[in-house]
């Protein structure tokens, strides 16, 4: 069986070396690239299973690389961002990146994100989605937590089912608004964070320490099975 192949793109040699060493240690095959140009070539030749992509490259932005990659590849892309370039991070996510980690990140965190991204399959089409003790029945439009029914408003249900169908995946604010309220989302969308808070009060044992519905600051939300 061939090993999973990861392409790492970063122009900082020390970071590239550290990532390469750690990923090899974790059992992955690793290609590296230091520029956007090298990244395009390496992606075309190596057909990576996942890409770890720095957003700032000497000859262009990681967002552009991500957009091109999406035209022909479904390999998950995890972008490396730094504090303060929130907009670039969101742009990359909207351009098709699957997830991000913020520098300086812990290796454990990156590996966990990478495993989750590789594991994630396309939505199964099953009418019943299970996330931890949470069950979302898309047909009957019902939700239960540890076997007990939870009453949700229609908007809360649409929000939860979108997140549940994309379990583990970071859903950007824009994606959520478009999917839940339609492309011409209106005034109610100003209250996305309010909807999330209301939903948490119904499905989280402690809404201020959410275990299912996690906030990704400045980017979006994701639904995970509690560890």
């Amino acid at each position, binding site marked *: 069986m061939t090993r999973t192949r990861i392409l790492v793109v970063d122009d900082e040699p020390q970071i590239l070396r550290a990532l390469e060493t750690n990923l090899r240690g974790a059992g992955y095959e690793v290609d590296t690239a230091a520029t956007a140009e090298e990244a395009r070539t390496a992606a075309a030749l190596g057909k990576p299973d996942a890409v770890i992509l720095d957003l700032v490259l000497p000859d262009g932005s990681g967002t552009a690389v991500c957009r091109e990659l999406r035209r022909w590849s479904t390999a998950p892309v995890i972008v490396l961002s730094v504090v303060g370039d929130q907009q670039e991070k969101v742009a990359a996510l909207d351009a098709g990146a699957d997830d991000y980690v913020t520098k300086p990140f812990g290796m454990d965190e990156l590996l966990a994100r990478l495993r989750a991204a590789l594991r994630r399959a396309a939505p199964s089409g099953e009418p019943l989605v299970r996330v931890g003790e949470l069950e979302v029945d898309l047909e009957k439009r019902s939700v239960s937590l540890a076997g007990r029914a939870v009453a949700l408003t229609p908007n809360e249900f649409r929000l939860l089912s979108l997140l549940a169908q994309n379990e583990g995946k970071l859903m950007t604010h824009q994606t959520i608004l478009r999917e839940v309220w339609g492309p011409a989302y209106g005034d109610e969308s100003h209250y996305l964070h309010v909807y999330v808070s209301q939903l948490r009060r119904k499905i989280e044992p402690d809404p201020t320490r959410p275990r299912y519905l996690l906030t990704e600051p*400045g980017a979006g939300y994701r639904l995970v099975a509690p560890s």
Partner: protein
Amino acid sequence: MHNRGLAHHVAGAAAGVTAVAATTGLVFALKPVAPVLSLGVLYLLAVVPIAVVWGIPHAFGVSVASMLAFNFFFLPPVHSFALRNSENWVALAVYLVTGVVVAELAARSRRRAAEAELRAQEAAFVADLAARLLESGEVQRELRAIASRLAEVLGASRAWIELDSLRQPEADETVYELTIGNRKVGRLYIDAGARVDPAAAERLAPALASLLAVTSDRERLARRAVEAETLRRSDAVKTAILRAVSHDLRSPLTAIRAAAEGLQSGSFELGPDDQAALLATIGLETGRLDRLVSNLLDLSLLESGTATPRPEVWTLDGLVGRALDALGADAARVHVALPPEPAAVRVDGAQIERVLVNLLENALRIGESVEIGGGEAGDEALLRVLDDGPGLDERDLERIFDPFERGRAPSGRGSGLGLAIARGFAQANGCRLWAESPPGAGAVFVLALPRVEVPAAVTA
């Protein structure tokens, strides 16, 4: 203007005729009681007022008319301009000359009085101008008031003063250059329709120019002094920041370096416990460095005024949740006591997260357990961070928000930036942040956030 002049002359002529007629009537009335020749002097009563009000040409006309009227009505043969006695010619000539001389004297004294009044007005204007400019020190702000006073003094309907002006005068404006020697200070534009005495404008222009020049010079110097002072102060602040920060950066770097070299070195034996301890040090100290760097970034954003908030509607529990998540492992020591339906507020989520994280970190450094509670007061939602430490002195309640003020923190912990940043972000978001210290309890930090109503459609 032409019309006005004509009306003036018509009025003068009418007044002259009236005066002569009235005086003639008076002479008729007095003729039975006095020699008629001596009554001729009464015509001066007609000449002098006309001279004073309408000037010499009118007075001369009134003089001649008076002479003719006196001759016609009173000197024999009456009702004819012929004269019987030659001495009557002498009397008439005396009247004429006296009339003209008196008229001239009267008109001249009147001109003097008018001129004196004008000069007095001009002097008052200059004094007022000087006082105004020297007091206020802001030339631009006073220009409009000065111009309208000037228009009043010159008898113009409008006047404008423009400093460093280059614009061409409009068709209905007369322009006067305000200069001192070769230096052009500005321009004075006067409404061309006004009957302005050019001599008065010429007299006032130099005084105006020199006062404006002195004041704007003074203003420029003051501005430069303020700029220099600001620069000097911000340099001093930067030096203080650099000094404090380089200490704060060096200590974790030293710890990391020592731990890494200890792990690398083959010269001494390290047990697995020692190795684990060194690795833990590296992890802990990089975390500290990371927090310090993001605090500095926050501070520089706040100082440069680029921390523009992007307000969105959040609920109190949503904001507290973000802060607890960002706090990491320490969040376990925070007790949350929010109402079941926490209020919604309009703020920048990321910035208020920094405020809460900094407040909680500060409280966790001082106390064993920390509580965060919530409530509402008027149009504000409140979040309260309570610690169980020793509380604050009255005089520290404000001071602890100053940068590099370490307050109650044990030395070596905390950079002294956290509360300053918290207050900076709170204010940028229209929130208020203050400290309280109720007797017999720890410190309480209160964050008041602008509350918003959530439409019923959202909650249903």
